[in-house]
């Protein structure tokens, strides 16, 4: 797996030593790593170039904040710029007279049909009355696929088989929506290449007829350098109002999101997070930024965690984190809290330093690992948990014996803990106004 950018930057600056101000040489060396990380994350080459130039301008001569190392300072700037590039999350515009039409477009296999059903389901739970329209008459069984999904979630699907031209199907679908007083119509269109003029003309025809409020480009999070061209072409030819990034539950960094956003200026609205019908999330720029930089997806975890968390405890932890006094005892408490939340591997994957790789771990093994971790910390005295630096060789041997583990395992835990502390600090300082990131460990 990729080494995280923060680790790489750390080692760049380790060789440079600590300084009060970022020099040009420092910055260029660091930006080389940033550039590599972004390219490895599939951000488009040209977009990377512009991005790095912006970061460079901001970074050179910037004062390194007292509390930060130079590496952290660079990360902070990169993270802020990334978040700015990714833009705010935007809601669907459903302000027209009903029915509001949402049209999904994209390349073959990007996940439009699944996303159509997810959106319908989600909108229904917010009080809407959606109708799905099966306008993909090309891919074998695409119509059946949407029908099956519609049945599963009990939302009506307007379909006419595969013979009528898609614009006609859409036209009749709209009429039906009005008759049935549907408030939303979601159009599932066939996947197509933007270099296929006939197929693109069909989209334009559907658009003219259905006057969609939203035209969402559904794109695969694994898309490479071509993302720029694809987004640009769809935007030019049909006019997009939003982007949807699917299959984000894989371990692709999702740099394509930056590329597409940068060239179209259109906001990212949703993420597809699993094959299940509820696998849809609102887009958060800060989370995607951390992911692209390889810093985990802490916030999603926090959100999940908050549902089962004791509010008071959360507030206490937040305070501790801010004061940078988060210790192993807190870590232990949180580990126990995590266990309350069920699927450990799905939570683990969001922790920086453990990363997406966690999902591919054997859940049984992960559980075992968690138990060891618990055993190790439990074998420490309260003092040791508060200041892990107390743990010298003989104390470590004692802890290892007491927990039925080895000194290596104790060491591994300690270094992992330190790395987490570092990441916490970076993330915390990488945000303006500290909005909510203090909660990072409030689980």
């Amino acid at each position: 797996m990729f080494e995280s950018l923060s680790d790489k930057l750390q080692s760049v600056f380790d060789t440079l030593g600590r300084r009060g101000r970022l020099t040009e040489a420092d910055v260029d060396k660091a930006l080389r790593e940033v550039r590599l990380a972004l390219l490895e994350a599939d951000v488009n080459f040209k977009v990377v170039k512009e991005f790095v130039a912006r970061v460079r301008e901001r970074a050179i001569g910037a004062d390194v904040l007292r509390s930060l190392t130079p590496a952290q300072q660079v990360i902070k700037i990169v993270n802020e710029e990334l978040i700015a590039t990714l833009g705010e999350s935007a809601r669907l515009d459903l302000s027209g007279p009903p029915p509001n039409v949402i049209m999904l477009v994209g390349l073959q296999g990007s996940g439009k049909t699944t996303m159509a059903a997810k959106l319908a389901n989600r909108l229904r739970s917010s009080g809407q009355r959606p109708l799905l329209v099966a306008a993909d008459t090309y891919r074998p069984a695409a119509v059946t696929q949407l029908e099956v999904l519609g049945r599963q979630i009990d939302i009506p699907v307007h379909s006419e088989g595969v013979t009528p031209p898609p614009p006609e199907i859409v036209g009749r679908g709209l009429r039906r929506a009005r008759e049935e007083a549907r408030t939303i119509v979601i159009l599932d269109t066939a996947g197509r290449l933007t270099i296929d003029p006939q197929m693109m003309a069909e989209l334009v025809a559907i658009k003219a007829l259905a006057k969609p409020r939203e035209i969402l480009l559904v794109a695969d999070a694994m898309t490479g350098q071509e993302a720029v061209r694809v987004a640009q072409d769809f935007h030019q030819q049909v006019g997009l109002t939003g982007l949807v990034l699917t299959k984000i539950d894989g371990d692709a960094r999702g740099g394509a999101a930056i590329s597409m956003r940068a060239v179209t200026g259109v906001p990212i609205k949703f993420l597809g997070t699993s094959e299940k019908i509820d696998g849809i999330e609102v887009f958060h720029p800060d989370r995607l930024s951390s992911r692209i930089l390889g810093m985990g997806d802490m916030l999603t975890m926090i959100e999940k965690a908050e549902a089962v968390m004791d509010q008071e405890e959360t507030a206490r932890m937040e305070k501790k984190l801010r004061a940078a006094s988060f210790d192993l005892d807190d870590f232990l408490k949180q580990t126990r809290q995590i266990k309350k939340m069920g699927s450990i591997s799905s939570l683990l994957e969001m922790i920086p330093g453990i990363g997406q790789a966690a999902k591919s771990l054997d859940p049984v093994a992960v559980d075992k690992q968690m138990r060891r971790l618990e055993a190790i910390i439990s074998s420490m005295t309260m003092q040791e948990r508060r200041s892990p630096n107390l743990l010298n060789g003989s104390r470590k041997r004692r802890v290892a014996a007491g927990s039925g583990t080895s000194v290596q395992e104790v060491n591994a835990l300690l270094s992992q803990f330190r790395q987490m502390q570092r990441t916490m600090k970076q993330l915390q300082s990488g945000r303006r106004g500290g909005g909510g990131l203090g909660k990072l460990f409030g689980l």
Partner: protein
Amino acid sequence: MRTQGLGFARGRRYNSPRTPRGLAPGGHLLFSPCCLEDVLVLSRFRRATVATEDQEKLDQSLEKTRRGVLGRIGALFQGNEIEDDLWEGLEEALIMGDVGVETSLKLVEATRTRVRTQGVKRVSDAYQILKEEMVRILRGDAPPFDLDNRHRLLNIGLIVGVNGSGKTTSIGKLAHYYRRQGRRVTIAAGDTFRAAAIDQLKIWGQRAGVSVIAHAPGADPGAVVYDAIRASQESRDADILLIDTAGRLHTNFNLMKEMEKIRNVAQRQVHKAPHEVLLVLDATTGQNAITQAQKFGASVSVSGVILTKLDSTAKGGVVLAIADQLGVPVRFVGTGEKITDLAEFDPWVFVDALLDANA
């Protein structure tokens, strides 16, 4: 404007002196670095006898990719003198084609070194060297393709990949491809999960004129495969069995285990099966394809790649990184949504398409 003055126009390469090697049984090419021209002649010949229109289709679609970004590499080589920005531009163009930083740098380095040590002066010669380096990586040293052994009672191919990469479509095309070679093909509907996946596969089965063995949606894919193998063996109605599987992300532990189970079922029933495990990769995919190949490889020993959607503007350059870093070769390319839109992979044609100056 298209310049053909570089000496790399199609056909020229047939003339360069290279040592012939040979063909593996079944007409498959033994990949070795110095039989390029024979390989090319023979593979083209073979394709021509098998599916002329496939080749035409590939040429057509690759023609489109030639106009793309990587086409600029060719443009870079049109100058007369080798200068430093040539290398930089080359690196950039390779990265823009999804070849990835590591493999791009490696390619540029290898080309540079050869240019230096061989005292190459002309840009056009450097161009040829780059192509050779790319082809060398693409051919690797994988064993010959092994899905159509005529001496084997039943050849089994397991088709895997992430969601939406083109598995089911590729199976339809492959079934058609082998049928046209007079083979008897059966398909196993191993995707019992995705809505209407079985219906989709059955339509492809009809189009190709082959039978599809399926259970009900939600059934155990292992059981489907077991039945499909039994049915193929008993009826003697198939000598090639293609197994469709549900799309899955390699990050999902349980689904990867399920796929291993499917593989194990085949392994237990037929000696050395599956004979090919083909990872279906969308050419639009970026660097994550490397991780996909790694993880699917670790799970079910992927033996080759089917690169789909090459009719798009994407270059599929990441297969260079996969061949380079993992040694997994590309076997087929998908060039459209029709049943005939499949061609055997030819590294020269592929590289040509990436580099040809037509920007």
